[in-house]
């Protein structure tokens, strides 16, 4: 069996969904002839015709608003935003319309569309090409937000997202596009909203999603060598959030580190931490610690490695989970008390 990249898995998901349902249309900037700047839509125009996969004018609010109209007309648009920061021009259309149309019309108009957003960094991209923008979407009721970390998830989550009756922001971790797995792509038919335990462990839980999942897994392997047994959860779906899987794990391990590439302040990780301490307070042996990007604009390519949560930074956080009786002075300094 040949190795499959995440990019290929996404392409296959689009193909299989287009074959299964002729209402599925793919459009956006450069998705036609070129196959997208990341080649996720490679060959779709050739194989399905220009009616099913086509280029649009260069205007993201236009693409999303136009797609919403097409969804009202019975189509299922899958649109591509070329890079994370280039979805911002569509922010009003996404938050004020796509997210709210079902609710505004009490279920009469639904918007089963998917907005694909290649996101996050680690690929040496220049400014505005590496934002981790998930926090903006997860806070917007009416949107589902999904992000794969494995090749098979890329396939199955995208198919589920397209089948979903609600609008889905489908966030694709750019740096994993070329990650490979030797697998037969399988469509696992379950609704969005389920996290996956990627590694079982008993000492502490690492929670990650998208680009941070491989980092968490590597950290877990490294920790294992030092005798610390970490559980790794890949959230996959940020909205809906799988409280069940997360809380079950943390209640068992009693310790938790949340890893995200986005800037930490008011990022999605904050929600995860808040939920865990609300729901597992008496099981926690130590504070839940966040490892996140710094609260700075995404740095230029030559400096991004210093910004991105590294395996070392995750291991450092694990070390701070108070397995021993030494107090953690790190936060005390800032607070002057």
């Amino acid at each position: 069996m040949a190795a499959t990249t995440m990019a290929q898995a996404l392409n296959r998901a689009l193909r299989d969904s287009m074959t299964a349902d002729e209402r599925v249309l793919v459009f956006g900037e450069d998705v036609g002839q070129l196959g997208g700047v990341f080649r996720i839509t490679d060959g779709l125009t050739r194989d399905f015709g220009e009616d099913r996969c086509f280029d649009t004018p260069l205007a993201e609010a236009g693409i999303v608003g136009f797609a919403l109209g097409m969804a009202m007309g019975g189509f299922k648009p899958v649109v591509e935003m070329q890079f994370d920061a280039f979805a911002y021009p569509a922010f009003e259309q996404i938050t004020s319309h796509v997210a709210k149309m079902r609710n505004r019309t009490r279920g009469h108009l639904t918007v089963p569309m998917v907005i694909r957003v290649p996101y996050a960094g680690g690929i040496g991209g220049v400014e505005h090409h590496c934002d981790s923008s998930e926090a903006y979407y997860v806070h917007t009721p009416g949107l589902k937000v999904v992000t794969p970390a494995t090749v098979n998830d890329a396939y199955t989550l995208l198919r589920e997202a397209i089948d979903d009756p609600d609008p889905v922001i489908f966030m694709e971790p750019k740096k994993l596009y070329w990650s490979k797995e030797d697998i037969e792509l399988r469509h696992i038919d379950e609704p969005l909203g389920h996290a996956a335990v990627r590694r079982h462990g008993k000492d502490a839980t690492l929670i990650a999603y998208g680009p941070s999942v491989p980092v968490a897994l590597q950290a877990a392997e490294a920790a294992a060598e030092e005798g610390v047994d970490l559980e790794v959860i890949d959230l996959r779906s940020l909205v809906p959030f799988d409280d069940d899987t997360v809380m079950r794990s943390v209640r068992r391990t009693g310790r938790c580190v949340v890893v995200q590439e986005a800037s930490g302040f008011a990022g999605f990780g904050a929600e995860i931490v808040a939920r865990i301490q609300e729901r597992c307070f008496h099981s926690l042996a130590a504070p839940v610690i966040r490892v996140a990007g710094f609260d700075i604009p995404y740095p230029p390519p030559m400096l991004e490695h210093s910004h991105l949560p590294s395996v070392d930074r995750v291991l450092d956080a694990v070390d701070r989970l108070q397995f021993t009786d030494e107090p953690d002075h790190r936060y005390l300094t800032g607070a002057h008390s």
Partner: protein
Amino acid sequence: MSDHIATDLLPSATPVRYLAEDGTTVDGPAGYPRPSTEELREAHRRMVVGRRFDAQATALTKQGRLAVYPSSHGQEACQIAAAMVLREDDWLFPTYRDTMAMVTRGLDPVEALGLLRGDAHCGYDPNATRTAPQCTPLSTQTLHATGLAYALRRKGTDSAVLALIGDGATSEGDFHEALNFAAVFEAPVVFLVQNNGFAISVPLEKQTKAPSLAYKGVGYGVRSEQVDGNDPVAMLAVLHKAFEHARAGAPFLVEAHTYRIEAHTNADDATRYRNSDEVDRWLDADPLARLEKHLRTLGALTDEDVAAAQADGERLAADLRSRMNADPHLDPMTLFDHVYARPTTQLVEQRDLLATELKAQEG
């Protein structure tokens, strides 16, 4: 890229007009289908009813029965023409100001007022009525209209879409993107700009330096026209033509020059930014009076006709009044409906919280 193409796309140098302000006919441009007398009689009746509806909604607002009401008094020719040129299978994309057009189209007045009453975001079924929710984020609906129009064409129908928009809202980027998408995808959509002179307090001359808003079409390859928006004959003629083009895959931009007689909404104080002279001048250009005079001159309208139209208006107003005077029964538990097709576990938790609260309040 020839001069010829560009000229074809440009609007007339002055607004298309067939009726002078005193109701006498003037020489308008050729090339537009003149509405039949029967159609004009119908337009007259609907304008009478529409204006009565608007007055009633304003009155209900003063009585606290509506959260807010943006009147379209003075814009009746636009509102009625917009509704009348639509076939049942066509779609209308209205703004907050276009309730009159919606009611003229046949929507139930109470349902049509859901947003402005405040009991719903949209009180009617958009699919059943082929009318999108009234849009408050300005100009965003022009893109939805374009996408839906393209969807209709893709489905092989010859239905078309009318997107209403105000003069101020033409400054938003979405309007520009909608015109462009419409042209590129040959979407059967007509954009009707009701240029009523103001965006709340901001007069058109601070909004744009364009020779007229209709000149925005050529930059997208969209055919355009400007029209006297207080001339019901011209409004019908131009909109009919625009729909002909749209159904053939050529989107069309119409600018109607009209005027907002009332304040922006009941909450607005128009005396802060304009004087009553200007309003008076526009009252002289009243579209209803103009059409009435015209039809009477033609001998196509009698006192009885006028009385009958007014009676229709009174019936609608009375029905509206009585139905709006009851407080709607609203169940807070519906807050969690329709956020998603199926509520998330988080929403189920929150619904339970509210249910507990409500039970505690009862008990």
